[in-house]
């Protein structure tokens, strides 16, 4: 049979494809629907949080930080309750990471403040003297892309039925409404910050990346 296959490239290729394809079918499909279900009370990300998530993705924070607490006592002691599948239901993409050069961030919102993040992102060694993390000063001047964050929320609402605009949930509305809401959220965070450029920008109606990122960090809990 193998000799025959080696003389018939078409059937050879079909054979290879069948052999490599079916593991994926068996491992991924059966659990697909169940794994998409959110935990009770999970809310979709606000537009500002999504803009922060975009900063997280753009600067590729997953290179060093995980968002997955494994069910070991040593991890729950350090980071909090182990992660549940349903907590990630609105994460597109998932951001678990694969390397912890820095600590896990899945519940960082429980134990770090705006003030801490501000100092840390400006100069990590000011709060963690031995830190090897680079400073991200450009987050204080770059302006977050709220339009794209809105487009993302609108897309997941339209295509994947992510529950925005429901009773007691996160309101999305129109682009203009979303911008107003994001700015209001940003003002609360900026009020706790000391960087004057950031404060001025928010007063002008612009949202620096750091504000969005902090909103996203606070959401992780």
């Amino acid at each position, binding site marked *: 049979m193998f000799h025959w296959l*080696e003389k018939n490239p078409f059937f050879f290729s079909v054979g290879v494809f069948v052999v490599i394809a079916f593991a994926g079918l068996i*491992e*991924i499909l059966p659990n697909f629907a169940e794994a998409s279900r959110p935990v009770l009370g999970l809310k979709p990300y606000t537009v500002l949080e999504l803009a922060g998530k975009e900063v997280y993705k753009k600067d*590729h*924070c997953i290179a060093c930080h995980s968002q997955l607490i494994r069910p070991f006592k040593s991890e729950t002691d350090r980071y909090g309750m182990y992660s*549940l599948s349903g907590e990630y239901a609105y994460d*597109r*993409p998932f951001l678990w990471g694969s390397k912890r050069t820095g600590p896990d961030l899945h519940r960082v919102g429980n134990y770090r403040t705006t003030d801490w993040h501000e100092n840390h992102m400006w100069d990590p060694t000011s709060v963690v003297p031995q830190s090897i993390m680079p400073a991200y000063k450009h987050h204080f001047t*770059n302006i977050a892309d709220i339009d794209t964050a809105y*487009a993302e929320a609108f897309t997941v609402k339209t295509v994947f039925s992510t529950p925005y605009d429901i009773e007691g949930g996160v309101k999305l509305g129109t682009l203009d409404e979303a911008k107003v809401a994001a700015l209001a959220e940003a003002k609360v965070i900026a009020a706790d910050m000391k960087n004057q450029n950031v404060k001025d920008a928010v007063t002008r109606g612009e949202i620096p990346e750091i504000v969005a990122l902090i909103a996203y960090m606070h959401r992780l809990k």
Partner: protein
Amino acid sequence: MQSNAALEYDYSVVKLFTYTTILFGFLGMLIGTLIASQLAFPELNYLLGEYGTFSRLRPVHTNIVIYGFTLSGIWATFYYVGQRTLKVSIAESKFLTIMSKVHFWLYFVGALIGVVSLLLGFSASKEYAEFEWPIDVVVVLIWVIWGVTMFGLIGIRREKTLYISLWYYIACFLGIAMLYLFNNMEVPTYLVAGVGSVWHSVSMYSGTNDALVQWWFGHNAVAFAFTVPIIAIIYYFLPKESGQAVYSYKLSLLSFWGLMFVYLWAGSHHLLYATVPDWMQTMGSIFSIVLILPSWGSAINMLLTMKGEWNQLTDNPLIKFMVLASTFYMLSTLEGPIQAIKSVNAIAHFTDWIPGHVHDGVLGWVAFTIMSALFHMAPRAFKREIYSKSLMETQFWLQTTAVVLYFTSMWIAGITQGMMWRAVDEYGNLMYSFIDTVAVLRPYYTIRALAGLMYLTGFIIFTYNMYMTITASKKLEEEPQFRSPMA
């Protein structure tokens, strides 16, 4: 039909891909060395402003070495091996000649744009699938064109039986096509909402499902880019260089079909103790162990090909590269399964042992194999002898030492960190804060950076040797049959 006169093969595309292999190899390793150094000396994060931090450069490094260096190497060898084992010159078909040129140029331009897009921060943030959707579309196009040239060449072949290397090239083509397509299923947000960045997209899968698809992809991208086509390369070049027949046809058969079947199951070992169902984790773990069989099957087949001819190791540095590559393949494919055992993974996951494992594979196995193939092809494609044997020897020892330094330092770093994260005192409280486990790694990061620098230096020696071979070395009258001539 087949005349006795040797066919004149067309190496123009082989040469082009050879140049990009070297170019991307240098760039990828340069950035790799830089980011390794950043972990030891954080001040190096600020050389390029916002574009120079570790986090921004890490995907640039991985993408250049995977989709730049490795893919170029795969295609340089494919256009060489494909023509020769099928006994047909690509120049015999005008259409295929044009397609192969289109293949190269579209790839080269696409790769450059891809790299720049990552530097600018257009990233889907899924490991090894960071390219945003416009680049993905180009990648698919390039892949289809490669399919056309490959199956086109097969269509006009004179040798009816496909040689082992071609099995692996076909598998590489099919595997990556399937994995890349499914993992990059994403919805461009601009097309739905009409506002925001055109580049942006959201994944079709969310959370745990996205993780499963991603690591089904991520693990098998390693399989079908770093294993399958590299086996294709070594199955052709080791027998050719040594003048020995492949040790066992049956073993190659068993290894090939075994690898195809088993590899795809193992992806979930990246998700041990994560939120995917237990049975998937166990499945990934078990199949990872089974994977030792087909992996070692190929490696042993290669090593036994040298049976009775081990003396070649002493006088031909090219054989040395290839035999050491096969040996590193064995090391790496034993190490991987060990890390996939659940209790080992509990310590190893998230630590530096993982990049350590990746690099004994890619530096020791992938890069050694590709560089030796480039060396072997040079006298045939450029009709000149290899410029310097002693430079090759220097490169070999420098890079071998580098690989050993790299993985040993990362083994120690990884296990140290994994143990410190879980260490508790007599009252059951955690003994170390996270930053303690970072500070303790600085010496190992320094050793790793040094290893990177040594490997990079070896690659520069390689580049110089290739450059001199192509431009200045002694011309050859006749194509060498087996052993590559070198000065």
